[in-house]
């Protein structure tokens, strides 16, 4: 059974149809990349999956249950984690706090699911702090450190520093660490290497590869095609709100429709390799 099923989803903003009848599936353990030129509708699709926006038509199913239109908080509780295109970390909070917040949905001792008076119980537990609450907090801190070791020496030495003081690349790493703290069933990465130089990109490639090796299901938006080709089990190409190609990386890379979407016209793509033409005399 697929983990994520998107069936014929459409979303329009006024006159612009950002996502037009898109369907795609993601099986457990797969890494699926969504690529396409700017404005193709990729981030809108992500927003629809993660509850920041609701589809006008179509269905989105996660582990068999319909999630279209559910708010982001519910989706997080179901095991969906995401990173954002421009890196939305909690700027004034430390790296550790950022990662701990990723585990919010996993708080059980201090946040019991009691109807009606739940918030008051949470308040009381935060005040009194019985042994179970303290143990949970300690456990989550240990887990957060473990997650940060994935990034080598990049984040651990800075664990108590506020996120705004980190470099851009480090902030994006914190974002991923935060998402991992949720122990997601499905991880959505929105251009994780945007703005990174080649060596940072290579590092990120290894991290994502390691996550995939651990069995994490990942849906990735990316522009860097080498990354996409190396990591993906399947590639979905969008242009103008529609899926124009889908399949294994090597197949998609040579698909004429894909080349045209990225480069304009297929003949121009060939001509760029050839010697410049002589201008004809009039």
């Amino acid at each position, binding site marked *: 059974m697929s983990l994520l099923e998107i069936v014929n989803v459409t979303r329009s903003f006024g006159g612009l149809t950002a996502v037009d009848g898109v369907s795609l599936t993601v099986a457990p353990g797969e890494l699926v990349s969504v690529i396409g030129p700017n404005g193709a509708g990729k981030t809108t699709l992500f927003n629809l999956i993660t509850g920041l926006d609701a589809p006008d038509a179509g269905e989105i199913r996660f582990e068999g249950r319909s999630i279209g239109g559910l708010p982001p908080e519910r989706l997080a509780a179901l095991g969906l984690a995401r990173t954002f295109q421009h890196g939305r970390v909690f700027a004034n909070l430390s790296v550790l706090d950022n990662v701990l917040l990723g585990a919010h949905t996993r708080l059980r001792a201090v946040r019991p699911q009691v109807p009606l008076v739940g918030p008051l119980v949470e308040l009381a537990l935060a005040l009194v702090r019985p042994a179970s609450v303290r143990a949970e907090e300690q456990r989550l801190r240990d887990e957060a450190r473990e997650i940060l070791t994935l990034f080598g020496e990049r984040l651990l030495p800075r664990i108590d520093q*506020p996120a705004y003081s980190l470099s851009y690349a480090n902030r994006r790493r914190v974002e991923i660490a935060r998402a991992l703290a949720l122990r997601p069933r499905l991880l959505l990465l929105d251009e994780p290497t945007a703005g990174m130089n080649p060596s940072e990109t290579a590092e990120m490639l290894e991290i994502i590869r390691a996550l995939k090796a651990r069995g994490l299901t990942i849906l990735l938006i990316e522009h860097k095609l080498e990354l996409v080709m190396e990591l993906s089990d399947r590639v979905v190409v969008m242009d103008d709100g529609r899926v124009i190609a889908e399949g294994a990386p090597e197949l998609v890379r040579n698909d004429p429709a894909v080349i045209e979407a990225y480069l304009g016209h297929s003949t121009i793509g060939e001509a760029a390799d050839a010697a410049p033409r002589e201008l004809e005399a009039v």
Partner: protein
Amino acid sequence: MNSFLDHTINGLIIGNIYALVAVGLALIFGVSNLINFAHGSVYMVGAYIGWVCVAALGTPLPLTLATVMAGCAVLGVAIERLGLRPLQGAPRIAPLLATIGISFVLDQLVQLIFSPDPRSLPSQLPSWRLQVGSGSIGALDLFVAAAGIASAALLYAFLRFTRLGAAVRATAQDRDAALQMGVDVNRVNQVVFAIASALGGLSGVLVGMYYNNIFPAMGFQATLKGFVAQLVGGAGNVPGAIAGSLLLGLIESYGIAILGTSYRNLFAFIILMAVLAWRPNGLFSAGRKLPPEPLTGTFVAPSRPLSVPRWALAAAVGAALILPLVWRDSYVVQTLTNAWLYGMLALSLTLVAGTAGQMSLGHAGLLAIGGYASALLALDLGVPVPLAVLLAGLITAALGTLLVFPAFRLRGHYIAIATLAIGEIVNLVILNWEGLTRGPIGVAGIPPLELFGQPLVDAASVYWVALAVMVGLALLQWRLTQFHLGRTLRAIREDDVAARAFGISLNRYKGLAFAVSGFAAGLSGAITAHMYSYINHETFNTQISVLALTMVILGGLGNIVGAILGAVALIGLPELFRGLAEYRMLVYGLVLLLLVRFRPQGVMGTV
């Protein structure tokens, strides 16, 4: 039915006056995304310039109006240049706070120069009246309507047909793009402020003539009415502001006819809350907007808080405890008691505005609920005072959270406006619900604080009770904001979109923050009520809300020790310079301005 026409005409005239204010606010908001709290003060200054012209100089009407408009335009440009342009890079809510500071300073300056008493502003128009239906229209009514229509038409022509007008519209749409196209955005800002202020001043002098009454505090209501009108029409939308103003004027007029004058302002605020709750983009749009990218909306300036060692804190508390025994000046003891009570309020505010990032300008309303709840429980139900105070805290927590709940979906500066309105609504309800609160008479004979059945009447005992409660609340708040609750609230402050994406329910945690905050504020109001033994709807006014905000920013948003320090500083220090008592509000306004500009993280740093 005859009077329906009367009330309609009346409503439209009033609406015209509001429109002059609202249009200015809409222009400023459209171009610089700024909520200009100082606009009402400019309106008030306009009225006073008019008074100087009419009563002192005796100038003819056209000259009066021209002077008013020119004077206010200059004032507007000065506000933009000195108060707001330096804050261009700061988070959006910084200019809002700066304009609050400016409005304080302007209001107090005028009050110092002209005295707080109202004075009359005779209309310089002939006093004939036209019969219309069962009522009549006077020359002034027609003039106000003409002024409103003429201004709207001129403004439309300016925006539509001149190059500068096009530059204004371009800047309103996309400031960066306009900048890139060579538009002098600073000049556009100045022009907009000049026009908006001129219109505001004109409105002020017309209102003064219409009611034959001006007073230094008249600006505040105008600002709020202008906001309501603007929000109803869609923020930044000039035609919408006019439509909203007319609508507001009509509703007020009909409402007064049905329910009486004292309800006038209540309508404005209820409409405001309704619009904010259901149609924050205004009545004329139905947009489902996606949230903007991060680093918008909140005020918290990044900083490392100064850490105070525990022993120093313990020593300070110890010193505070023995102070009444050592320093037997009852005036000092009373001042510090006041400081502790404000300290509770500052703690309460720093939790929601600092830790949770919800800028609240209506905390005085929470004080009022607490004060009245405790007073009425003790007087009317005979509840023993200590229990009444505790219950008042709980009632304020519940009621306060309930009242703010409709505003939870709002962000950034809209929360500030909504909470301001809620604070006003609380006081207006207290004023009008005579059966419960004794209305304008207030509640007298409130029993004093007591402990174990013994009434506490000397200054030192009250001091110790206030100190103990404040320290207790500080410890409670410190404990609560450690670990998961603190970081969850801060996450909401930092980036509520990311917070939601990780399962944090905004309503739940905002509710918790306001509940705890309400409890602290309620206790403060309750103790105050028993200490003063008399309270009315003006005891806990908006000035207190702004003062609390200044204390909290001075101490550092979210900083518990800072909040108490801010309270002691702003209550204690002015008492040292007692000769300057008249200038106290002026000083508070200046302090707020300077803090926002030069040290937004406060003395102790934000947490």
